[in-house]
């Protein structure tokens, strides 16, 4: 049998080339302690493998649980009433998700629109231009920032961003409190940057040095090299970094909740309040028991979120796998 198989069955791998007998042959004495060790190994393996099953159970349970809980509502209202209507009146039994979907997409788009160019430029700088000292400071700092809790970003948003946006909005002629789509997008873009920068940087590092040598030795500037050679080679990986940032933006709850206004209406401008899906769920769990079908509605919101984010993540994963295959060849 192959070495892998014999390993999996908990047996000690036979020592090749020494002429020693394989496990199980009469010349090999299976002492009681040896049998005990093998048995212990087998039990551990069963336990370990059990956790694999647990993961599958969890993932499927999550999906099915949300689906099951949303069913009542899905059965009652039509697709159009649910996803294309902005009429959100739980007491009257109207659950139109459009405003929330638009809110979620709006905040995410603004966040990515700002974060993408800034983060990519920063990542290129760190990879191609920055000296060792800058990098040794910047990269741990960025990793630290990725771990800062959402509430703190929300706090900063409330204190530093919202007043500024209010000023900007009134200066431009809009009536706004500052708690609006733009604020949400700005706070979110800040939260998304660390993850995009760190993934993009790693991807750029993996482009072989030979590419840079080949381009630079032709007399190209660093930027020309980056633009025409490196970015082309790293394109898929950079897309992955953006997709990952996007999925983080879609699911972010607390920070956005604190600055975005939470009004279930389609936004008329950047300075109108919006109500993204995560905020909807977070704000209303208290009402869940008192209004019929409300819990279904919230679970449906969670389900929509999960489906979209999962689609993004699996897409990123597929892209990454293609990349890895490309590098190995």
């Amino acid at each position, binding site marked *: 049998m192959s070495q892998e198989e014999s390993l999996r069955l908990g047996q000690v791998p036979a020592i090749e080339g020494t002429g020693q007998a394989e496990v199980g042959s009469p010349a090999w004495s299976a002492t009681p302690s040896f049998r005990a060790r093998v048995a212990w190994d087998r039990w551990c393996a069963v336990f370990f493998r059990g956790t694999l099953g647990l993961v599958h159970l969890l993932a499927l349970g999550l999906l099915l649980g949300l689906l099951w809980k949303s069913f009542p509502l899905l059965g009652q209202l039509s697709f159009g009433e649910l996803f294309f209507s902005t009429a959100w009146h739980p007491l009257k039994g109207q659950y139109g998700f459009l405003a929330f979907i638009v809110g979620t997409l709006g905040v995410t788009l603004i966040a990515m629109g700002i974060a993408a160019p800034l983060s990519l430029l920063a990542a290129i700088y760190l990879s191609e231009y920055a000296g060792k000292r800058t990098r040794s400071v910047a990269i741990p700092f960025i990793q630290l920032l990725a771990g800062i809790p959402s509430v703190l970003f929300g706090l900063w948003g409330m204190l530093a961003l919202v007043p500024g946006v209010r000023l900007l909005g009134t200066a431009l002629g809009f009536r706004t409190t500052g708690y609006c789509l733009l604020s949400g997008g700005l706070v979110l873009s800040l939260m998304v940057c660390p993850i995009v920068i760190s993934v993009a940087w790693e991807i750029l590092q993996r482009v072989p040095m030979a590419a840079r*040598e*080949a381009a630079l030795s*032709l*007399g*190209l500037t660093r930027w020309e090299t980056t633009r025409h*050679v490196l970015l082309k080679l790293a394109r898929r990986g950079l897309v992955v970094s953006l997709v990952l940032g996007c999925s983080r933006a879609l699911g972010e709850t607390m920070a956005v909740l604190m600055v975005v206004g939470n009004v279930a209406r389609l936004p008329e401008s950047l300075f109108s309040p919006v109500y993204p899906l995560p905020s909807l769920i977070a704000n209303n769990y208290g009402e869940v028991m008192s209004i019929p079908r409300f819990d279904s509605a919230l679970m449906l919101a969670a389900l929509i979120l999960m489906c979209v984010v999962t689609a993004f993540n699996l897409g990123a994963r597929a892209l990454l796998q293609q990349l890895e295959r490309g590098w190995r060849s």
Partner: protein
Amino acid sequence: MPLIQIRNLNVYYQKQQALREVSVDIPDRAITAVIGPSGCGKTTLLKSINRLTDLGEGIQVKGEILIDGANVLAPSADLLLLRKKIGFLSQRPFPLPMSIRDNLTFAPRVHGMRPRDIVEQIRQMETHWPMVGPGMVNRPLPGRRSYREAGLLLTEYYLRLAALWDEVKDRLDSPAQGLSVGQQQRLSLARALAVNPEAVLADEPTSALDPTSSSIIEKQLKLLRGRFTFVVVTHILRQAKRLADYVLFLYLGELVEHGPAAEVFTHPRDPRTRAYLSGEIN
């Protein structure tokens, strides 16, 4: 005044010294072979000349390298001009992620060469150093404004110089990554020549290639040496003997001996050179 003059070159990788007090003039329009055991600084010497050492971390380069009399190791040196004048062929060819034609026309375009410059460049080349054949010069040349035709002319000319034209002439727009290693290396040669350098540095250009491709590259180098200066690093003694007009022997970071190939190979002065040539040191 020779094109490339090296004066008191010292290179350090972190704390280790890779090159020690190297001083030499590289003869123009000839093939200079840099020989020596592996790890003795041959590649470092090459990369110092066109300052590819800037890419590495913790590499310190001290001394002077004069190209056309100007020290390129000075912080104010014009790197773009330097790298246009001195081309580079690496051990493993790396095609730019574009079509074959774009691989060749990209750098000239970036350097701002206009169609008439390209036409003039090729005409000059063929008139004074005919290498491709009268067909290229005598045919009707493109008008002054046509970028596309100038690009095609450039592509054809330099691919012929690299002995690659016949193999790829019907797929110029296909990605360069699809070529075999030997073809990619010839493409790299054509690409390096297309910006009209004075010299080309080649770091073990045939070590990754099969024997047939290797001999094609060697043949082209010998053909081109009348027009360009070549500095070729090689660890294959027989290749050095085939190609070299001038020889540099590097051992443990020191330039032990240098001189015309005939002299160094038949009457080496230093015992270390003798030991290397006879195969004692590897």
